[in-house]
């Protein structure tokens, strides 16, 4: 996938660590850009990224402009996204990895609140598109499972959350 393939909210299912690294690398080549990697587990593809962009003084700007945040539930994700949106100076890409983990952790406590927060997160990012200054990429690490037609979408399963998000909030699923 290239940068042109990124929409307001994109769900990426067929990714690999190398392709994610390449996309991050391409995005940060542009001036005035910043990337927020929101993660539920320690999954940033550091090795692949370092192969593409060696960690040296010349590339310091690139490494400085990647912000890694840990989020383990929907409330944390919502707070982080809200804070990112407040700053509109730079062109931003939000990469979310482990949405299923965050949603499940919140559902353990309160399922309806987890749904509410999911809605608020994506309505916020959709509402803050502002001419392409903010884009969101959701990495679906659970892989794609075809959904039979007419089957009711459930958000309880790990893949269900991506199907649900894809259907109601995403512009494109790759």
């Amino acid at each position, binding site marked *: 996938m290239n940068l042109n393939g990124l929409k307001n909210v994109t769900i990426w299912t067929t*990714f*690999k660590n190398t392709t994610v690294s390449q996309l991050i690398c391409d995005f940060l080549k542009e001036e005035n850009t910043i990337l*927020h*990697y*929101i993660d*539920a*587990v*320690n*999954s*940033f593809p*550091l*090795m692949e*990224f370092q192969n593409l962009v060696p*960690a040296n003084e010349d590339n*310091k700007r690139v*490494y*400085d*402009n*990647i*912000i*890694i*945040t*840990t989020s*383990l539930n929907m409330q944390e994700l919502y*707070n*982080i996204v809200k*804070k*990112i949106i407040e700053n509109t100076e730079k062109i931003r890409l939000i990469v979310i990895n*482990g949405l*299923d*983990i965050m949603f*499940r*952790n919140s559902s*353990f406590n309160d399922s309806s609140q987890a749904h509410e927060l999911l809605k608020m997160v994506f309505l916020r990012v959709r509402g803050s598109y502002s001419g392409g200054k903010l884009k969101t990429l959701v990495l679906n*690490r*659970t*892989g794609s*499972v075809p959904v039979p037609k007419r089957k009711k979408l459930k958000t309880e399963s*790990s*893949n269900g959350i991506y199907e649900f998000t894809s259907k109601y909030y995403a512009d494109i699923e790759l």
Partner: protein
Amino acid sequence: MSLGISLSQLITDNPQPLSSGVSALDDALNKGFHSRSIYEIYGPPGVGKTKMGIQLVQNATTGNSERKVLWIETHVSAPLNLMDFDKGNIFTVTTNKFTQLLIFFKKLLEKDEKYDLILISGFSQLVTDHIEILLNRGYNFKNIHELKCKHLALILTEMTKYTHSKNASIVLLNDCMNTSFQKDIGNVEDNLEVVDDGSNFLVSSSFNSHRRKNTQVLRSSLVANSAMGNKDNIWEAFIRCSIGIFWNWKHKDIGNNRKRNFEKCRIAVVSDLNGKEMQNKKRATYKNEVDCSIVRFDIDESSGSFKDIKADLNNINFDDRIMPPQKKNKSGSSVSISPSLTDSSRQVSPEELLLDTSLVGSAIDAYNKTVYEKEPELEAIIYDSEG
């Protein structure tokens, strides 16, 4: 609330990966045990899980007086008597309940004290006990797997919070269990023809015709317990790598003489549980996609620590593996051998090998040599079906 840290800061803050002492294993783990990560080591009794833990503690504390290690002991005391190095920075705590451990991690997160490495020996036993308690309380057996996954996700979330906030590593030392040890697990693996995802031994059992033909697999006790099911990916997402340690035969050319050589070594099967391909797929379908490495190692007699025995055999393509046909031995149990082993040019005939099931490992060695025309790769150690 912090918005996070920059990647440059993360690289600066993160300590170097912790070496296991076995360079091939470190390579398989991408330079060793990383901070901000949870690892699992599992294997049968006596294979060296605790020894590996001690080696990690030694490597963590030696030459770095600031690194602190916490050994959480469950049902067995921490092996402090086996640690013949400075134990000034090693702390122990005992917990014998799953819920106690959960609260412990919540409290630990609030404290300023930082441990760089936390080992939990017998974590799987805590989980097994917890499942038994839930069953005794009247929880429905049908729902127990989902409940196990939820509770494991809960405790692993707390552990992940700790590792991320303190730049720490957590290593779980677990037992392993045969997946078909119980009769009432339902259809968990009924649909599997072959389970050879590399993280286990294979057993082909057709001893009694009336019994279901099982493919018996040694798995971590976190997976193979009385709450088995197919949703383990819920909690496995938190574990960066799972390392299964098993026994294997050493490969020595026995030449023309028929002297039997049954020296053993160890293999570590390293599975990347965080790999995208592993998630949400039935085990039978991801066997060809699993990111798995095999490392051979053993104890160095002089130093008493684990060492490499030869270049590791990483990145085996399981797609190429062929399951050999079966022959019956005298006892009636069936074991897998290669058709090529019936060739008279073999130094040891398969029939002779099959008289003694302990020789089956050698049979598989020879089979692998024949098939791959290179050093044998992964050997499936085959049990007697009653074993």
